[in-house]
C-alpha cells in the first residue's frame, strides 16, 4: 500500500470517466479532496484499497451539515463491516450519483436507498418517520407532533402506496419522483 503513488494514472482517469458521470476535472478534484481528507502527508493513500472512515468523510463541507450524511456513507460503502467507510472508488461512485449529468434513474435509485434506513428494500412507517425527522431537524422544537406525524405518514402512504401493502417500494418511489422536475437539480453535490 505504501508503494503506490497518490497520483492517478491516465488509464485510471479515463476508466473512471467511462464508468461514472464525472468529467476529468471533477475526478482530479475529487482525488485531491480525498487525499486532503486523509490528512496524512507521509502515507499517500492507494486508490483501490485504502478506506477513509466515515467520521473523516463527513468532515467534507458539502456533507458536514447534511442530515443524510451517515446514510449516504453507508449506501455507497462497499466495506464488509458495514461501517460506512469509503474507498476512493466508492467516493467517485458517490459523486457520480450526485453529479450534474447523472440520470433520473440513478438518482432516484440511490435516493431510495438513502431513505431506506433499515435496509429492507422498502420504505415503511419507521423509515418515513426517521426521514421526516431528518428533514425537519432533530431538535424538539422543530419536530412535528406525533399527531401531525401520523397524519403526514397516512397522507404519504395514501398518495404513493399504490399496491396498498403499507410500504413504498422502489417503483412507487420512482413514480412520485418522476413527476417532479426539481428532483434532478436538488439531488446534487458538486465539489
Amino acid at each position, binding site marked *: 500500500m505504501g508503494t503506490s503513488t497518490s497520483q492517478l494514472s491516465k488509464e485510471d482517469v479515463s476508466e473512471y470517466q*467511462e*464508468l461514472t458521470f464525472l*468529467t476529468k476535472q471533477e475526478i482530479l478534484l475529487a482525488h485531491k479532496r480525498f487525499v486532503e481528507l486523509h490528512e496524512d502527508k507521509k502515507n499517500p493513500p492507494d486508490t483501490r484499497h485504502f478506506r477513509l472512515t466515515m467520521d473523516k468523510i463527513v468532515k467534507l*463541507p*458539502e456533507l*458536514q*451539515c*447534511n*442530515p*443524510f450524511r451517515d446514510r449516504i456513507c453507508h449506501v*455507497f460503502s*462497499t466495506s464488509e463491516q458495514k461501517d460506512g467507510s469509503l474507498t476512493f*472508488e*466508492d467516493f467517485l*461512485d458517490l459523486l*457520480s*450519483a*450526485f453529479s450534474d*449529468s447523472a*440520470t433520473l*434513474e*440513478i438518482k432516484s*435509485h440511490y*435516493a431510495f*436507498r438513502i431513505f431506506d434506513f433499515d*435496509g*429492507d428494500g422498502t420504505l415503511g412507517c419507521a423509515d*418515513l418517520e426517521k*426521514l*421526516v425527522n431528518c*428533514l*425537519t*431537524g432533530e431538535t424538539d422544537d*422543530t419536530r*412535528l407532533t406525533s399527531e*401531525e406525524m401520523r*397524519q*403526514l405518514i397516512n*397522507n*404519504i402512504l*395514501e*398518495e*404513493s402506496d*399504490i*399496491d*396498498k*401493502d403499507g410500504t413504498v417500494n*422502489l*417503483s412507487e*418511489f*420512482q413514480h*412520485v*419522483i418522476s413527476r*417532479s*422536475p*426539481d*428532483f434532478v437539480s*436538488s439531488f446534487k*453535490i*458538486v465539489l
Partner: protein
Amino acid sequence: MYDHNEANGYSDDQQLLRLRRASSRGTNQNYPQFSWSSSPTDEDEEDSSGLRRDLKTIPMPMALKRAVRQVQQMQVPVVSSIDSWKRKRTKFLHRLRDDGREILSFFTLWNRPLQKIGGNFGGGVQSYFLFLRFLVVLNFVSFLLIAGFVLTPSIIFRSVGSILVNSTGLENCTNYDPNPQGLVVFYTYFLDILSGTGFMEYSYLFYGYYNNTVVENSNFSYNIPLAYLFTVVFYFAFCLICIIARMGTAARVAVATGGNAVGNYSMIVFNSWDYGCQGEQATKLKQKNIHYRLQVDLEEQRINKQAAALTPKQKIVLLSLRVFMWLVAFGLIITAFFCIFLATNFSQQRSGEGGILGLVFEYLPSMVITTGNFVVPLLCDQIALIERYAPSTTVIVALLRAVFLRLVSLGVLLFSLWRQITCEGHTKSGDCELCQYNYKVYPCWETRVGQEMYKLTLFDLLINIAVLVLVEFPRRMVVDNWSSKLAQMVGRQEFVVPSNVLGLVYGQTVVWTGTLFCPLLPLMNAIKFVILFYCRKITLFYNCRPALKTFRSTTSAFFFLVVLLFGWGLATVVMIYSLAEIRPSMACGPFRFFSNMWTVVPTSFYSLSELSQEFLFFIGSQAFSIPLFVLSCVVMCYFIALASVYGKNVALLRAQLKLEGRDKQFLVKQIAELGRQLQMTKPNNGLLQSPAERFYLQLTLAC
C-alpha cells in the same frame, strides 16, 4: 411470472425469480438485509442484442461495473463492424454533448450566484432571480434586434435626410424645435437626463429623431419607416414566443400527468431536500422551511376538512363576509385609480414649469403610482387575512389584486395621456382640428409618450436604489445593534417574492408599452435589471432574514410568466391602438406624413413585384385562410386528444400497478403455503437443501 419494466435501469435488482441470484449471495449474513447488487453475468443476457448499456447508468459499486466492462470488452470480437462504428459514433456524440454542455454552463449568466442563492434561501427566492435573469436576456436580445434593424440603418442613412411632402395649410403642424434655446444653466443637463427633455429629447432615444428615409439604390433598398414598424411588431411576437416557450416546460409536466398533482406530501418529503445546501445556517434554515411547509399543508388540510363540515348558516355568513371584502378591495383600487388620474391631469397642465418644482410636477404621476402600489397591496393582504381563505389561496388572491392594481394604474396613466393628445377623442374639434392631434401642447406626441415611459422606468430604478440605501441597510443596522422590544418586533426585513415579482412585471410592461416611442428602452431596461439583480442580491445576503413561507418553485415560475403575459397583453393593446387609430405627428418621426402608422405597409406593398403582390394577396384571401384555420383546428384537436389519451394511459397503468400488487400478495401467500407443506414433509435440519427451496425462501423474504 411478471417482470418490471425493462426500460427503467433498476429492474435488474428485482430479478428475484432468477435462480442465479441464490448463488450470488455469498454469505447468508445479509439476511434479511436486502441485497442491491445483482450478479454481473445477468447483464450478459440482456445485452446480447443491440448496443450495450451505458455503464454509468448501472447502479452498482465501481468494482462490479469494472467486471461488467471486462465482460463486455470480451464480447467485442463477436460484434460486427457496423455495430462497433455505431457505438463509437454514439460515444463520440455523447462526449461532444457533454463538452458542449460544459461550455454552455460557463457562458450562462450568473450561474454560481444563483446556485448560492438557491442553497441559502430556497427555491422560491431563486425563482425570482431566475425570472429576473430571463428578463435581462430577453431585453438584451430585443435591443440587438432593434439596433440591427432600426438604429444602425438610421445612423448610417442619417445624411440621406427626410422626405418632405408638400402640405399647404399645415405649416403649424410641422413646427417642432426640441433643441434648448439660449443660455442653459448647468444643472438643466441633470434635470434633462432625469426627464428625457432638452438635449436628450432630440436623440436616438426617442421616436422623434428618426427620419422617414427611404433608401433606394440600384442594388439595395431600405425603407426605414417600414423597418421600424415591422421591428416593433416582431419584437412583440418574439417576446410572446419566448414567454410561451418558457411556460411550456412547467406546463408540460402538469398537462401530461392529467392535471392533478401526485399529492403535495409525498413530493415534499421525497423531494424537498436540497443536497447542495452547505453550512450550518443554511441547513437549519432549510429544515425550518420544510417544517413550516409541512405544518402549513397539514393545517390547511385540517381547515378544509372543517370548512367542508360547516353548517349552511355558517357558510352564508362566510360568503357574505367575503363578498363585502371583495367590494372593499375593489373600492380601494378605484380610489387609487382616481388619485392617479387627478395627478396625471395636474401634471399635464403644469408641464411647462422649470426648475425643481417643474421636476416634481413631471414626476407626480410616477410618485402617486408608486405610493399606490405600496399602500394598496398592504391593505389587500390584510383584507385577504380577514376573508379566511386557505393559506395558499390567500396568497394567490392578494397577488392577483395587486397585479390588477399595478397594471391598470399604468393603463390609467396612458388613458389620461390619450385624452390630452386626442382632445378626449374628438379629433375633429378644438385644438385637434388642424392636425387630428393636439399640436399646440404636443408638437411631437410620440416623443412625449416615450418620455413618460422613460421617466417611469428611471424613477423605478432610482426608487429601488434609494430604498436599498436609505431603508434596508439602516433597518438592519438598527435591528442588529439596538436591542429594544420595538426593534425585535419589527425585525429584519424579509425577502417577499410576490411583490418583487410584481415590480419586475410592471417594469417590463412599461418597457413594452414604450418601445414603439422610445426604441432604446429595452437596452435601458436590461441595464436597469442588471443593476437591480446586484442590488437585490446584496440586500438578500446582508439585510434579509429568510421568508418563513416558501413558494413551490416550479408552480411559482409558471405563475410569474402568466402574470407577465397580462402585461404583454396590455402593451399589445396600446401598440395596436397607436398604430391604427392615432395620427402620427407631422413634425417628427418616421411616419410623419401618413394618416396612421399602419398605412406605410399598404403603401410599400404596392412597390413590390407583381408576383409577390399576388402571393401575399392569396395568403390574405379567404381561399387560403379558411383552409388554414380548419387545418389548425384539426391539429389542435389531435394534440388535445393525444394529451387526454396520455392522461388516461397514466390512470390505467396506475390501476394495473394496483392489480399487480394484489397478484403479488396472492402469490406470496401461495408460496408460503407450499413452503409450509414442504417443510412438513422434510426432516428439519435447519438448512434447506435444494435450490428450489432456497429460491422459495428468498422469494418469501424479499416480498
